């Protein structure tokens, strides 16, 4: 089953890379860009929110750090790609700070702390007009000079590929097992020697770096950013929802989630105009109620149950003869 998942992921990436051969419309490129961007972001979130089970709703902090890093540093005369890298560093720094404080908290308190930190950054960006342009916003340089839309799209596909590779590695490493142990029961994890704080922090640093790269690509596509957009809770929740819809803590979940959610959002926007947010919200409620394990999680469950029925029933061990 692992192999099948890997094959699906590779197929998905190949299709993504091949799309420019057939797709011509700029509009379609934008939609596809979003699909891959949020697949990558969902995968990034999944490391913390899925594998480690730490429900962050503040990932906009790292997304915004990437976008603003790119804009602010390149305005200061630094080459855009280097500026993007500095943005990633900034996000990692934020992650160390935010994680250092909020990972001391568990459950809903952790989630609230992540929201609070992202909000603080949003308000700070609104008020530090000298650096960020405040509410007026800030221009973002294009990362690519030629055929920017298509290049950014391919960059998003590449980012998804990187996020998939990292997820594949995590899901079969000791680190990944430690994250899952923390998700299942942090006290049990501690009882087998897992340094839970360090593991969670490490996952968050990786997640933040990927998220910042996504933020940079996003900013570079729109060429202009404002705090209420790249640092908003909408970004944070969309990342979480993409992963949860597809299946938090699964390898393919965020991919599936992004394909469905982003294309559905686009369709709904065209059909229902302003009402699309309402329908979007309803969809989320339905998923949470009826597919709590997400699409990939529910599918895996079904398959496993089928093979469990086929296998001989397990007999408990009898008393040992003494």
């Amino acid at each position, binding site marked *: 089953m692992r192999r099948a998942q890997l094959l699906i992921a590779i197929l998905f990436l190949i299709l993504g890379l091949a799309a420019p051969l057939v797709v011509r419309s700029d509009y379609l490129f934008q939609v596809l860009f979003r699909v891959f961007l949020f697949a990558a972001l969902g995968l990034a979130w999944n490391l913390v929110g899925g594998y480690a089970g730490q429900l962050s709703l503040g990932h906009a902090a790292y997304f915004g750090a990437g976008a603003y890093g790119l804009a602010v540093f390149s305005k200061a005369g630094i080459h855009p790609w280097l500026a993007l890298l500095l943005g990633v560093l900034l996000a990692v720094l934020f992650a160390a700070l935010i994680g250092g404080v909020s990972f001391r908290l568990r459950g809903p308190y952790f989630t609230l702390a992540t929201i609070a930190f992202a909000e603080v950054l949003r308000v700070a960006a609104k008020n530090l007009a000298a650096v960020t342009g405040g509410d007026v916003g800030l221009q973002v340089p294009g990362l690519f000079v030629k055929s920017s839309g298509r290049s950014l799209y391919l960059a998003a596909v590449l980012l998804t590929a990187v996020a998939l590779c990292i997820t594949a590695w995590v899901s*079969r*490493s*000791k680190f990944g*097992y*430690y994250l*899952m*142990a923390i998700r*299942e*029961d942090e*006290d*049990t*994890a*501690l*009882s*087998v*020697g*897992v*340094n*839970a704080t360090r593991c969670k922090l490490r996952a968050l640093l990786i997640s933040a770096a990927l998220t910042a790269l996504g933020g940079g690509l996003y900013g570079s596509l729109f060429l202009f950013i404002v705090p209420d957009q790249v640092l908003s809770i909408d970004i944070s929740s969309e990342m979480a929802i993409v992963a949860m819809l597809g299946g938090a803590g699964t390898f393919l979940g965020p991919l599936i989630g992004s394909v469905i959610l982003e294309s559905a959002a686009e369709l709904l926007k065209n059909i229902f105009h302003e009402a699309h947010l309402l329908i979007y919200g309803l969809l989320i409620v339905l998923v949470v109620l009826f597919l709590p394990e997400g699409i990939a999680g529910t599918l895996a469950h079904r398959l496993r149950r089928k093979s469990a029925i086929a296998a001989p029933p*397990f*007999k*408990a*061990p*009898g*008393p*040992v003869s*003494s």
Partner: protein
Amino acid sequence: MALLELNRVSKRFGGLLAVNQVSFSINEGVVAFIVGPNGAGKTTLFNLIAGVFHPDEGNIHFASKEISQLSPDRAVHLGIGRTFQIVRPLRNLSVLENTMLGAFLHTRSPAKAAEEAEKVLRFLQMGNAMHLPARGLSLPMLKRLEIARALATRPKLILLDEVVAGLSTSEALALAELLRRLPEWGISAVAGVEHVMQVVMRMADRVIVLDHGTMIGEGTPQEMVRKPEVIEAYLGSKYKELGL
């Protein structure tokens, strides 16, 4: 030589003195059981040794190291393994994966951890259940899984908190038989908590009796079941019933 040494250890929860000036030591090669009525402070004592709580007074030494302020994950690295009285499986992971998490203490490789976990599970006669998710297991199996996970960390001292509680007498005795073979796993001392006196009598070299957080007796199982204060505080009619 004393592997574990508690020196006038006290732990308070608000106004409640859960553990009161407790001192004892456990030498290598010894199986010690802590007995006492519900709420006597047995689990709290284990949590103090395992680093979940830190003593308000007194200190704890393990292998000649002061461990009173150690965190639980550090305590495991020193060689203290523990089970939870109220089982705490990793529900969505398989029995094998649950046990692998213990084995990861000594290896980075999932393949090696799986190999080690498999050995432990076979020893505990759970080989057939290896690939089942922990969430569907029966209580006897969950109790064994607690032991498996702790055993896979290859501890020097293992803290078994009521691992036979809730099992039928035959299951309990079967498990006790297995636990007598723990030295094969390099375990040099066992500290257990059990209410089933048949198991305590069969396994223990030493018994420590706790009541309301205070130690009221210590000695061989035979000595303890004869001590009037101990019978009074805890064993009482139960002891007579069993006719030990």
